[in-house]
């Protein structure tokens, strides 16, 4: 019997000044009525983001508010196998949809003083801390690619894109890094 090595392989592993590819992580699209889910999720020690366009973290898992009934759950790849049973148990009796999207998308971290400038090259959002404070998250665009953005610190962002869009997004980020490096 042929067996594979366990490592997941992502496209576009290159990194440059101001951004880097993150290791694979566990991602789940959770669709559920937030009011119905808040209690059970809390009881199961799982996060649920209640505030619009804000992330909530609990233990190893973070929940990103992407829509009124849509959360993106993000955790470590090593914890991947545990989540589905934990969620199923927690949301037993609550109508919901949980779909594994870990391989659909990958994450890029942008950090440092150039992070918001790199983002401004492709994303029309205002990254001033008054409108996008730490914990801000949203589904948006980077140039012509759909992405999910999550501000984890004042100068640190996580950007998730679908895997086939990664070469496009990282290529643009590399161009942008060159611009920043040249100080222009």
């Amino acid at each position, binding site marked *: *019997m*042929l*067996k*594979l*090595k366990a490592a*997941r*392989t*992502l*496209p576009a592993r290159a990194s440059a000044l101001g951004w880097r590819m993150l290791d*694979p992580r566990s991602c789940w*699209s959770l*669709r559920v009525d937030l009011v119905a889910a808040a209690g059970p999720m809390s009881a199961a020690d799982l996060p649920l983001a209640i505030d619009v366009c804000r992330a909530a973290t609990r233990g190893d898992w973070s929940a990103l508010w992407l829509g009124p*009934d849509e959360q993106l759950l993000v955790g470590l790849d090593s914890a991947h196998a545990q989540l589905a049973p934990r969620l199923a148990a927690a949301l037993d009796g609550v*109508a*919901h*949809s*949980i*779909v*594994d*999207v*870990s*391989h*659909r*998308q990958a994450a890029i971290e942008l950090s440092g003083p150039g992070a918001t*400038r790199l983002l*401004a*090259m*492709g*994303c*029309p*959002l*205002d*990254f*001033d801390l008054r409108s996008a404070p730490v914990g801000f998250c949203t589904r948006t665009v980077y*140039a*012509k*690619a759909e992405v999910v953005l999550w501000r984890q610190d004042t100068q640190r962002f996580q950007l998730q894109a*679908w*895997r*086939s*869009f990664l*070469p*496009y997004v990282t*290529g*643009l980020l590399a*161009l942008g890094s*060159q*611009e920043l490096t*040249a100080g*222009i």
Partner: protein
Amino acid sequence: MSGDCRSARGGGDLQRSQPLRFEFDGRSYQGLQGDTLASALLANGVHLIGRSFKYHRPRGIMAAGPEDPNALVTIRRDAARSTPNLNATQVELYDGLVAYSQNRWPSLRFDTARINDLLSRFIPSGFYYKTFMWPRKAWHSLYEPRIRAAAGLGVASTEADPDLYAQCYGHCELLIVGAGPAGIAAALTAAASGARVMLCDEQALPGGSLRTGTSARIGGQDAADWLRESVQKLTAAPNVTLLTRTTAFGYLPHNMVALSERLSDHLATPPPGKPRERLWQVCARQVILATGAIERPLVFPGNDRPGVMLAGAARSFLNRYGVLPGARVVVLTAHDDAYQTAIDLKAAGVQIAALADMRTDPAGPHVEAARSAGIAVRTGTTAVGTRGNLRVTAVGLAGLDSNGAVAGAADWVKCDALLMSGGYTPSVHLHSQARGKLRWDEATHAFVPGAAAAGCRSVGACNGLIGAELVRVFEQATAAAADALRECGIHDQPGAIAISKELAVSEDRGASGGWIGALPQPAGAKAGKAFVDWQNDVTAADLKLAVREGFRSIEHIKRYTTTGMATDQGKTSNLNALAIAAQQLGRAIPEVGLTTFRLPYLPVGFGGLAGYARGDFFAPVRKTPMYDWAADRGAVFEPVAMWQRARYFPERGEDMHQAVARECAAVRRSCGLFDASTLGKIEVAGPDAIEFMNRMYVNNWSSLAVGRCRYGILLRDDGFVYDDGVVARLSDDRLHVTTTTGGAPRVLGMMEDYLQTEWPHLKVWLTSTTEQWAVIAVQGPQARAVLEPLVEQADLSAAALPHMAMTRGLVCGVPAMIFRVSFTGELGYEINVPADYGAEVWRAIWASGQAHGMCTYGTEAMHVLRAEKGYIIVGQDTDGTMTPDDAGVSWAVGKNKPEFVGMVSLRKPALQDPRRKQLVGLLTVDPAHVLEEGSQIAAEPGQRPPMRLIGHVTSSYYSSVLGRSIALAVVSAGRSRLGQTLYVPTAHGESTVTVTQPVFYDPKGERLNA
């Protein structure tokens, strides 16, 4: 005058210690750092810069700013970096700059097309509408190309643009457009509040009219010192972004303003990697427009000779660049502002041959200052013509009587420059682009901003403060800034600057006056051309002709005469044109109205608009996890939607047909491996999943058992086929829906649309999983044998996993969904594994398949294989006007369903007409002839056009396994024509075909169910 025209006076923009060499039309000249190409040419006594658009008349520099209509040049760095139609007044000089004049042959000084000027009575406005009517066909092939070539501007480089163009979004509470005195005062006010302020100016140096030269003192300082200190303050403020060389060219909805920042065009050697331009898309909460005003030329015969210049421009050239427009100048004005020019030039040693004022009784501080400077003022005087060829040599001045008519003979005054001023026109372009209203102000004879768009304020000259005292400009600008900040919720504004102190103005002179329209001319005189629009060569006579010929609307007059339609968009001409038309129509100017202001305010290069979106970044190029493997094996790819899909895998010099024949044969004989990852995948989950699918798709999903698949069809609400795909029931409340590659985003969008707007109460959610799964199709009689050694925890036998069933298991140890489905008609499986594992599982299956004669195949073989089975491809065999019945798949439509999208439409009589085009097979009588896809089909042979056509070919291939060509077609009442002979007209005669069932291979499906 030629040679050195540089003055020791003025030159505020210059660094006189830094000489630069440059070339114009092959001749070398010296300029100074800080010059524009225009100022450097004038400094060298060069006034002849170009030839006019239509008449090829010699032209010089008329204005000092971007409104100049004449001085268009080509700047060439190398073959690829050659930019035509740049305005010499906007081109900053650098060492080694190479410029060429345009629209002349063989040379600028001697241009053969000057003949047009002599023939001008034969080519009046709209001559091409009247003259070039017959023969009609010749318009496209002969007349239009010739006219366009004759009336050319510069020539663009045909090489790829090697430069980089940056783009970014900007956000601020307050965007101020224009860094003249008004813009700077507004910025100083807002800077103190801590709000984010962006201040942009198209010039290399901020200051606007303050740089042109003013007698005023601000805050107890010279205006120049105040300007320097203010700019330092703004530059130091962390909340202020000051952008120079940045043109706000478009005002879009919601205060989104587009700016074009020129980053490296002014550098002799742009550093590698430095973008040439940056396009800013600024989202501003509030906008202050401080865009100033543009001086109006005067319309009189011969007003276009080189050496005829706007008076304010001449002052700008002196005070900014230390350039003298001539040695002996005549000033002709209807506005006080030109007096300051005369005074400044006289102080620089220029002889003022005459200062002619059209007004009979000009008075005020300007007039007094001129007289006390020893300048003779001729009042009530107009110009009736000029002399000179490549440079003005004299101007004919004539007196006006009390009725404003020309009285007496012309006095020809010798001069080498004629400076004119008809007053100033507020630059309301951006205010108008923002959908602000305009108001005619009788006092200043100008259109000024009326009701503005939300969050948009105009201040200073663009708001009608023409020639006003600076203190009024400051009052307006600081008040507007304070208002704008309050709109942003910033009420506490400490440190707001005080008009009484920091902005206290002294020794300022307000200016007034102005003239709109053509100057009075002697009755019955045979006048020369009096230009209104210099760039498009439109004269006062052209406008009058248009009115005589019946045009009434200013929009029609504009298009007929082309006035205001050149690259300068009529910045210097629109108001004069309007006044002439209004006078001719006998109506007041505001009744006639203005033409529309559109973006861009100034021309913007395509490179800047494209930004990063070029080459690899024009659009995302999507690749599957197995792309690299296929590329390594020499696959030829084809774009499908945004995806790159392997089309075929040629071996040893095969062409596509040979490769496809081999790939098809391998699938039919043993097995093939195919990358189906691009298929759209949507997980439909929730208690109402089946109910939702029953409403969306035509099929009945309630009867689909868990672990079973079904071919689904999605219609639009008009009843026509929109998409198709295999749907699997994963559990009671979860379906795995596949779509076509290209249809994935729109199918998900349509589903979400219905779910959110029609059935929001359904408890079901949709998640795209297209990219979660790599899909590996293993198709052919040996498919089971290839896969079985790699699979655990799943039974692939025909009994356990029949056609259209699915199961879960491990493939190469990876959790997988295994679908027994086939788009080839063979025994087949589609293995879905999480995408990160796709390439490795693919390689393992490939290795396992080698013992069985496995072959990889691409989309082209897939198309042939499915056509042999009569499986349709939505978008190829359907065209958006086909019902399920037309496409031969009405068996899929669920019976007795209460509703599904498109169900009502299917009942319309037109969609049940038996004469509708239906999918059939076609076999050519000549088995070697492969019909062309798209060919039309006729029922009767030998027809001549117009033919009666009854259908067309949708798919056509050579089938190796059948040893002949096959085709799918849609034919009117096709299913009633089985066995009939039809005719397909081709480029090489008629092809005779027989109508058949659309399934050509294994019609009983024995291979499928093996």
